[in-house]
Each structure stands twice: as C-alpha cells, then as structure tokens.
C-alpha cells in the first residue's frame, strides 16, 4: 500500500533528477524508498504477529532461577543435615563467600558461583567435628570393650608385638569392590623377637629395605594374592621363614669377608695392624725385635690403645662428627705421647 503510493512519485522524480544528478542519486533515492516500503510492511506484520503472539503464546520468556538456599539458612542450622555425605561443592548450599582461581590481569579470584575449581577439588564439608562426633556415637554399638589390662602403649607392644594393617574402602560406583583392599602390612620390632647377634644380622641382611634401622622395625607388605586373608597368611609365613632361616647357619656363611660385615670391627683390621706396627717400631728402638704373642697382647692391652680402638670404632660406625674427631685427635696424641 505504501509502495504503490511511492511509485508514481518515483516516476515523476525520475524525470527531474536524471537531468541533474545522474543515475547514482536516483538509485540511492530509490533504495531509500524501497527501505521505507520494507519498513512499513514490516510494521504491519509486527502488529499481526503481536496479536498472534498474545493468542498462541509462541515466544516463552526464559525461566528464572530462584534465589539460592543460602539466603534462607539460619546461623544455627544443623550443618550435618545439609552435607550428610561426601558431595561435590554446591555454591547454592554453602553459605561461605569463598573464592578460588587465578586472578587474571589485576582482578580477584573468581567467586564461588559456577566455579569449576571449587567443584574439582575434594572437600570435607561432610566431616565437620560435630559430624564425626555424631558418627562415633552411632558406631559405638558395633565396638567391643577395650581390654582393661592394656592401658598403656608399652603393654600393648609387649603383649602384641606384631601389628597388622589393612584398609577398607567404601565407594558408590559401578562396582563396590576396590582391589587395594587385599594389601596387608605387617610390622614387628626385631627387639621383641628372640634373636642372637648372628641371627639378627642375618635377618637384617635378608630383609634388605624392609628393615628400618631408626625404629628397628621390620615391615612386610604383601599384595600378591587376590584375597586379604591369603595375603595375611603369606605375611605371617614370610615372618616365620625369616626367623627360622636367620637362626640357621649355612656352610657358605663362613666365607663372610670383611666387606660383608655390617659394622666395623677393630680386630684384624688394617688399623689395628698399623697401630701395632707403629708401637712396635717405637719400642723396637729400645729392645731388639721380639715379636711375640705376649708383647702383642700386652701392647693391645694398653689403655691408650684401647682408647684409640674405641675412637676408631666410634668414627667408623657412627660417622664423622666434631666430637668424634676431637676424641680421635686426643687418642692419637696419647698413643704417641705427644
């Protein structure tokens, strides 16, 4: 309707403009008119569309999110009811203004709403001290009484020297089973076992890295069998075998060389020989060479030599410290009467 009106106007304008401006202005003018005609028709269509919209309800407004439930939480609420089990972080249920993430370009760490970093990490919102107290109270009915005779740690270690540890896993997933549940760790102090010197040394040698020198504990971890019971039996078997084997002395153990020794022995060591040599040489200036067993013992029995022996043992076995070196210096001085 609008277009039909403009058409005769356009034709009349054609005649006017063609003389003055040429085709360029004519096309621009016609374009403007065509745009206006488009606009007018679109105005008509929007009217009909709006009426139709009201009737049919085509275009739906977006659903609004409600307010987060942190607004309605009271200060003295029961938190164990909000997070009873392990659950991921829910920003609408945790009323704390936490922020997490890298602050980009002089900004601040992002807020908690929609923050993936907070959801990724494990949280312990379900294990507040109140919750743990409640759980312990509830689980007491499954526990047996602690024996009253075992009231101190020492007594426990004395009566039960072997400690066995194993883990239980609870998870909700496709499978309830966890393969790590079969692992059994057995810990025992060698001091509580009946071992003599040779047996102890052999046991330590046999167990290699399972023995910890600082705590004198032998730790056996078994996970080669599929069931926990089997692993436990295997660990006990290993302990028994180790014990019995360390008491036995094999024929080839006689070939133990100086390099196999665990600790430094002064007898038959190069150091002893050197000291003897030196002392004899010192003596030999006075008396003629009479190297006998008796003089040897006599020489070794001297207190200076004993002291030297002690400091040497200390140095080699315990390592070099200021104190040890001082004592060595003193012993050497005494030996040579400096």
């Amino acid at each position, binding site marked *: 309707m609008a277009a039909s009106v403009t058409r005769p106007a356009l034709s009349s304008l054609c005649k006017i403009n063609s003389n003055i401006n040429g085709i360029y202005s004519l096309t621009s003018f016609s374009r403007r008119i065509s745009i206006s005609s488009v606009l007018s028709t679109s105005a008509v269509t929007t009217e009909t569309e709006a009426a139709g919209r*009201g009737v049919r309800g085509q275009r739906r*407004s977006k659903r609004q*999110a*409600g307010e987060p439930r942190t607004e309605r939480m009271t200060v003295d609420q029961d938190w164990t009811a909000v997070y009873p089990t392990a659950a991921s972080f829910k920003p609408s249920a945790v009323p704390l203004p936490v922020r997490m993430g890298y602050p980009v370009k002089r900004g601040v760490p992002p807020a908690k709403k929609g923050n993936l970093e907070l959801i990724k990490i494990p949280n312990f919102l379900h294990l507040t001290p109140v919750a743990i107290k409640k759980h312990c109270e509830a689980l007491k009915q499954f526990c047996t009484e602690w024996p009253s005779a075992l009231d101190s740690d020492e007594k426990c270690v004395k009566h039960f020297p072997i400690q066995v540890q194993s883990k239980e896993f609870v998870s909700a997933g*496709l499978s309830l089973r966890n393969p790590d549940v079969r692992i059994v760790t057995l810990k025992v102090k060698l001091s509580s076992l009946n071992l003599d010197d040779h047996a102890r040394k052999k046991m330590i040698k046999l167990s290699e890295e399972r023995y910890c020198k600082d705590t004198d504990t032998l730790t056996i971890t078994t996970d080669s069998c599929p069931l926990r019971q089997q692993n436990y039996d295997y660990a006990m078997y290993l302990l028994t075998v180790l014990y019995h084997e360390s008491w036995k002395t094999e024929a080839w153990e006689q070939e133990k060389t100086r390099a196999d020794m665990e600790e430094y022995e002064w007898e038959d060591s190069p150091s002893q020989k050197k000291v003897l040599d030196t002392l004899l040489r010192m003596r030999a200036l006075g008396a003629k060479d009479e190297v006998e067993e008796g003089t040897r013992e006599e020489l070794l029995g001297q207190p200076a030599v004993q002291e030297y022996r002690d400091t040497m043992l200390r140095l080699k076995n315990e390592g070099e410290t200021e104190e040890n070196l001082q004592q060595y210096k003193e012993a050497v001085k005494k030996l040579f009467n400096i």
Partner: protein
Amino acid sequence: MFTVIRSKEAVLQALASTVNRDPTASDYRFQDDPYLTPKTSSEFKLFSLSQESGRNAAKYFISTYPKYFQKDYAQPHIPCLMPETLEAQIEEVSEAALIERIQMRKVKAAVDLYDQLQQAGTPVSLDVTNQLLDLICFYGDCDPAQENVPEQRNEETEDVQDEPQTKKGRASKASDKLKAAWKENNNAERIFALLSEPNTHSYSALIRGMVKYGAYSKAFSTYTDLLNNQLKADVSTFNALITAAPEVKEKYNEKWELIVDLLKQMAEQKVKPNLLTLNAVLKALRRCGTVGKSQAFPVISEMRALSIDPSLASYNHLLSIFYKPGAPFQGQTDILQEVMNEVSGKSFTPQDPDDAQFFITAVRICLDTKDIEQAYRVHELLGVGENWRLLGNDFQQNIYHARFFSLLCMMENIDVVLKWYRDLVPSVYYPSSNVMRDLLQALDTDNRLDLIPQIWKDLKQLGHGNRQTLVEELLTLMAREKQNQEVQETFAECALDIKKMYDTGDRGKVMMSWTAGSLSDLVSVLLAAQRRQDAWEILKLFKTHNRVPSEELLDKFLTCIKESGDVNQALELVQISAGFCLPGTPKLIQRVQQEFLLSEQQKSMLSDLEIQTFNSD
C-alpha cells in the same frame, strides 16, 4: 581379627540415623540447584513425573532390546538393572508353561493355556489351578496394565487447589482401577465349575474376587455353597465377606447382625481372626450409623483379648466412625485424645492399605474441632521411627500439610506460624492460594503487616502472583492504614512490583484486570510513601482501563499535591475529575480555588469548569 557385623547395612543404617531433615532443601529426588529445584506445586508434580517417566522409558528400552544390555558392570550383581524378559519362554503346552505365565501375570495367556491343557486331556494339579484362580480373581479377568508402557501422559499438571477438587481427583483414580465389574460366567467361574473337588483355597479365591469387583450377593451365595460342601473357609474369605456385608443389607441393625453372624461362624469353624478382620469390621461399622458408635469399642477390646493389636488403619476407621465430616460435634473431642494417647511414641509398619489415611483423617478432625494440641501430637507422631512412610503419596502429603498449616494460621500467634512457615515452605509443602490467604489473615490479626513484601516475594515464587483475589487482598491490606516511613517504602516497592504483574502478560498467561478498588489501593499506597510521580501515572490508568476513581482518592491526592504546591497538577486533577463527571468535582474546584495560588488564566479555566459541572447536573 575381623569384627563380626550384624548385617551388611547395619553400619550404614547407624550412620544414617544421625542425619536429620534439612529445612531449606527440597525433596531428595531433585537436583540441588536454584535453577533446577521446583518452586511451585505444579512444577514439583511435573518434575517428579518426568523423572519417573524417564525411568520407565529407560526400562522399556532395556526390556524391548535386551541383547544390547547384556554386559554386567555392577559388582556385586544387581538383578533389577538387568533386562527382564517380557515374553514367556516355555512354548510347549505343559503345566510348567502355565506356572510361568501365572508368574508373569499374563492373565489371558494363562487362561488360554489352561483351556488348551484341558482339551489335550492333561490333568492340571489342584494347586496350579488354585494359583490360576487367584490370578484371575485378583486382576478381574483382564490383563494388568504393563508397567513399562509410559502411561503418565494422562496426568494433568494442574495446581492442587481446594479440597473438593482434590477429592474428585482421587475418586476418579479409584474408579479407573475398578472399571471392570464382575462379569457373569467369566473365566473364573467357568474354571471353578470345571474343578471336580474345589478346596478352601479355590472358594476363597473366587469369593475374594467377587467381593473385590462388586458381585456381593454372588459372594454370599458362593459362601453358602462352600458351607453346603462341608468345607471350612479361611480367614481371608471371612474378611472379604465382612467387607461385603454392608453392601448386601440396607438397615444398620441388619448389617451389624450379618457381621456378628459371620464372626460367630468364624468362631465355630475355629478360624482365628487377624488384623485385617478387625479392620474390615471397623470399616463396615462406618456404614452402620449409630450402631457403629456403640459397637466400635467392644470390638476393639475383644480383638485385643485375642492379642490382635490395632494398626493405624483401625484407628482411622474408629475416628471416621465418630467424626463424620460435616456433622456437628458434641462432646466427642476426647476420642481423638484417647486415640492419640494410644499411638503416641509408637512406630508403625504398614499392615493395611488404609493405614495411609490415618494422618489425613486425624488432621482433618483437628482442623474441624480447632484442636491445636492434638494436631501437634499428630505431627509429632509423624516424626517417630518409620511413621513417615505412612503419610501416603505426594497428593496426600499436600492435603495433610494444607490442613495442618491452616489450623496453625487460625490458632497460633504469628511468631509460631512464621516458624512453621519457614520450616515447611517450600521444602516440604507448596501452599495453595487459599492457605496463603489464611496466612495473610493471621498476619493481619497479629498486626505484622510489615511482613507483606516478603510474603509477596514468596507468593510470586509459588506461582500465585497472578491470582486476582489474592493480589487485591494484598493491596487492600497495604492501603488500609498508614505505617511508619520504612515500612511504607517497602510497601511502595511491593506495590510497584504488583503493578508489573498486571501489565506484562508474557506466555499468554491469564492476565489480571484492574478494578477500581485495586487501582485506588495502589494509588493510596504510593501516596502514603510520597511517590507522587508514580501515583500520577497510576491515576492515568483509570481512564485507560475504564474505571472510575472514588472521591476520597482524589481528595487525598489533592492534599498530597498541596504539600508540593504544584498548581498545574492540581488543575489537571480537577480536569480528570470533571472528565469522569464525578459529583464531587465542585468541591474539588472549591478546594483548589481556596488552597492554591492561581493565575488569572487558571482561575478562568476553573470557573469554566465550574459552570460546566453545574450545567451537567
């Protein structure tokens, strides 16, 4: 080394007993996110139904294409997640095939197979035939609707409104199930007739089926057949007959005598009554009028003597006998108290389908007798042990909470009401507009009108923001008295928010229409908050919506304009008044002339108007 645990779930149950309800969270079924939790009762229904239908659709697919779902991921094995066989496996005509079809609840297929077996001449054992009779009588000779077929499309998502509507909804569901009435000479009777020596079980199945599907007199005649054959009936037969007794006789006395007769026969045949017998008798007594009232307690004491403890269903029937809905109560309030004394502190397990009616009936009685103490006891009982299971489905829960909350609004002061409101809404209960109106009345009674903007926010969330009566009542309450400054400010904000609800009609929703009353209330609220500009806009709406403002309103407006001293606005006001041809226009004109400083032009305009109005009179 390892401690022995009583059952596999004992530890988990012990830990679960430490967890209480969270008053801000919605139902456990839904995702805990502000966008995804339902805010209105229709949303609640929609979301829960859509969850169920999704689950059903998934089960349907698994069962229809079982070959794609054979791999078992779950350790240990979960049988209910594997595809279930829908079709019978055994094809040949044999007794084992019949048993299989009975177990799969395929009524028609089982009956056909039985006929085939009969024709082939293979004898079918009495046990299997009894099972078949049980199947037919339970399902009324038609196949049960398959669970996997999505049949939820029939549910309409409408708001749960007043009680009459909801009762209608319930009745229609019940009648749907019992559409099949007991037909003459149907398969059950036919197969029964073919039996050479029907035993107690067969008679029992037949009688119970007849009673379930409405053939009461037939049931009694079958019973006489049983007696003639010198057989004894079992306890479920007697229960069915007692249920049918009120249908067969007309007068109260006759009904009761029939029941007593049946009970005597039961004693003669040395059949021990059970809990369902007690409940059947009490249910029948509901239909016996005054006889019921006198006989109810003796029945209970006799049953107690036989060590049958009443369940919640028995108490429900008892309450219904004494408190008929709609009847006036005279001195019967102590029965509810006695019942509550009996049941308080006990945890009940579901033993009878009518157990779920107890809480609703009890709270209805409390509402009718306005007994808040007993209502608290009923609510407390709900928290004991497993009793929450006996509250019924979502529908019945809604009714229960609606009645409880209305009673609270009526009887308690506003602090207690608000405490319960915050506890129950909207985590457990989405109130209807009637209940919200009760809440508004409670606010009014206790003079806490300053809480109205908060209630309005909740109303909008609950989806009641477009109910005309409710909104008009809100506006009236806000406009009635002048409050202090801050409260008035909040009122003004709330009022403008309400105005938005009238304007935007997105989604083609039911739009509210302005009335003269609501518009004037809105204007008064805005004027009281000194928002003259907004009020002026609203005043213009009077013309657009063809409503006439009252004289007091215009008077009030003039007073307000006088405080600011805007003469032009005063003149416009007078013109508006003249435009509506209000009888109070001359007074207005006089007021303007007296109170305002007018220029010559304005004075002349006024005098013209005056003459105009005189002429129109």
